[in-house]
Each structure stands twice: as C-alpha cells, then as structure tokens.
C-alpha cells in the first residue's frame, strides 16, 4: 500500500476528507475488496482508540469523585478545633462558683463568741459571692478573715480563695492575682481542682488584659 493511499484511508476514517474526495473514495472502496477490508480495520482501530480515550477520561473523573476531600477534611478539622476551643473558652469564662468541697471552716476546737462571729461572717460572704451581687461587701469580710492569724491555715486559705472570686466579681484582677498567688496550694491536699485553678488564672488573665 502506498503512503498516499494509507493517508486517504486515515482521512476517510477520521472524517476529515472533503466531500468530493469522499465520494470518489467510496466509489473506489466499492470496487476494491482489499481496500474495503483495510478501511474496516482502520475504522475498528479508531473505535478502539476512541473507547480507550473515553475509558481514561471516565477513570479520571471517577478517581476525582472518589478521592478524599482534603480541603473539606481540613475545614472539618479546623471547624472541630474551633468548636472545641469555643466550648472551652465559654466554660473558662463562665462565672466562678465556689468549690463544692466542704471544709471545716471552724477549724477550732473550742467555739467562742469570736469564732462564732467569724463563722457567721464566712457564711455571709459565701452567700454574697454565690449571689454575685455586691462583691465589695464580701471583700470587706474576707479581707479580715484571709489574713487572720487566730484562725487555721485551712480556714485562711478558703477565705483567700473566696476573696479571689470576690475580687474577680468586682473587676479587680490585680488584687485577685495577688491573693491567688498567696494561696500556694498544690498536691492532693489542695481542695481545689486543676480545672478550678485554671479557670481562675484564665479570668485573671482576661481581667488584666
């Protein structure tokens, strides 16, 4: 087969032959069985090439559809972090409540008039703080108790703890920090949880900034 004939077959099969050439070429095919066979084989090859190309395109589309959505995954992950951080910040910023852990504020073996008065003051300050109103009144009471050498260290420490909360309620973060640093409470003997201490530190930080 000549190169020219091969070129004509390919042009015909590819559909790029001019109409005039096409008519005369089809006449030629009719009278040449061998040429007809070559055209049919080339048409078959074209069909295979076409299907092969389509298969590659479809496979590529399917691969894209099936691939993990990295961008979306990242958004979900960042969204998750943001949501967790929001919850944490909300919890850290919520009003500080007094620890539920009970302690024997009396701490004194003998109950006298003075100790009874202190106990009453302590309870009064506690009620004010829990109510969240007039923290200044609680501060006045607790400043006397927190540094009173006549009462136990445990009693003093709890008074200081409550004083820190009262300062925070009164927007006195510096005083709250100063008092909090004096509590000096670590280890299993400390009645305050890590969460409560973290929350206090966070609120002091935001109160100062």
């Amino acid at each position: 087969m000549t190169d020219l004939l091969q070129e004509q077959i390919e042009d015909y099969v590819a559909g790029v032959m001019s109409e005039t050439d096409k008519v005369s070429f089809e006449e030629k095919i009719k009278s040449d069985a061998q040429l007809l066979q070559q055209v049919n084989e080339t048409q078959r090859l074209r069909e295979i090439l076409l299907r092969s190309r389509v298969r590659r395109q479809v496979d590529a589309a399917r691969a894209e559809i099936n691939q993990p959505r990295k961008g979306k995954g990242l958004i979900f992950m960042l969204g998750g972090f943001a949501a967790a951080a929001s919850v944490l910040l909300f919890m850290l910023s919520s009003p500080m409540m007094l620890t539920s852990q009970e302690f024997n504020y009396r701490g004194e073996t003998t109950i006298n008039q003075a100790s009874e008065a202190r106990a009453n003051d302590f309870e009064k300050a506690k009620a004010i703080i829990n109510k969240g109103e007039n923290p200044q009144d609680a501060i006045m009471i607790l400043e006397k108790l927190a540094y009173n050498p006549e009462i136990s260290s445990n009693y003093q420490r709890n008074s200081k703890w409550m004083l820190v909360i009262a300062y925070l309620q009164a927007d006195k973060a510096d005083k709250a920090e100063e008092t909090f640093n004096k509590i000096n409470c670590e280890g299993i003997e400390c009645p305050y949880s890590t969460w409560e201490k973290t929350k206090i530190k966070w609120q002091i930080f935001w109160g100062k900034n």
Partner: protein
Amino acid sequence: MNFSLSKQWTDEAIVEGILTGGRREHEALVALYKKFHVSLERFITHRSSDRDYAKQPEDIIWEAIEAFVVNVKKQSYSLKDAALETYLKSICKNLWFRYISSEASRDERQTKYMADWDELDDDVSETLIEKENWAYYIDIVSKAGKNCRQILDMRLIDGFSMQEISQKLVADGVFESDQTVRNTKSKCLKKIMEMINVNF
C-alpha cells in the same frame, strides 16, 4: 457561564463539554455523575434483590457513563432522542439486567425481575451497549506506549494531518524530527493492527 457546580450544568452543557474534550470533558463527566448518580443509584437499587452482588450500582453507573460518552462521541446520541437522565437510566437498565442475568438463576430472573423490567420503556434498546469485549482491545492500545497512542489518537480521532502532528510533537520536544514521527506512527500502526486482527 459558570460550570463550577454540577447543578448549573444543563444537559446541553454536559454534551457540549464531552464533545469539546480535554479539561472541559473531565469537568462535564464529574458534573454528569454528581447530577444524576443519586437518581441512577436509586433506580438500580430499587431493582435489586437483597443478595450480595460483586458489582455495585456505583460500578454500573460508571459503566453507563462510559457507554453514554462513547455514544455521544460517535454521534449516535442526541438530546433530541431522549432526555439525558432517561437515556442514562436505559443504559443502566440494560447493563444491570445483563449483569444480574449472569448472576441470578433463570427462575429468579423470570419470577422476580422480568415483570419489572418489562414495564420499562425500551426506546433505547440493547443495541446501546456493544456486545464486543472492548476491554481486551483497549488493553492492547494501552500497552502500545504513550507516544504511539498519542500519534494515533491525533490522527484517527482528532483528525490532524501528519504534518500538523509532527509540528506539534517536535515543538513539544517529544520527537526530534518530522521523519521520526512518521516512522514511529508507521511501526506503531502496523504492530497494533497485527495484534488486533489476530484476535478479532
């Protein structure tokens, strides 16, 4: 026109994208899948039994898309013939029935599915899906090498002349000269033809 979302792709835009080829064709195929896969999956699942099939509706959908694209490119499909979704469903129906025919027992087919299938319109007949096993021949072409395939694709599918093909491939640095392109094409064509004709 913005083609970024599958819902914005009209049937006409999808067909046009497939005929355009390249990146646009890829986007059209992704859009086609996204637009119809839910309804096609429901269509197939609704016509399945509880048994475990090795082939999933997802596989059938992609096979249907492939058959559809071939028909578009061969210009044996036009939107005037049938709405795209209807056409795809017809292909899915044929593919799925052919698949379960080979899987399920004759009795099961007769009693459980045939009545249902018979109710479906048969406008797009079994002839949509070629019976030849194209996979084997596609495999032959795939193994022919990238350059060989590229030359034959450009010549027989895209309809470029050998001069145009040479100019492009030499300019792209794939081949050194016009003659090496022609020689490669001749060898490649001869080899592939032999392999195909032996088995056809």
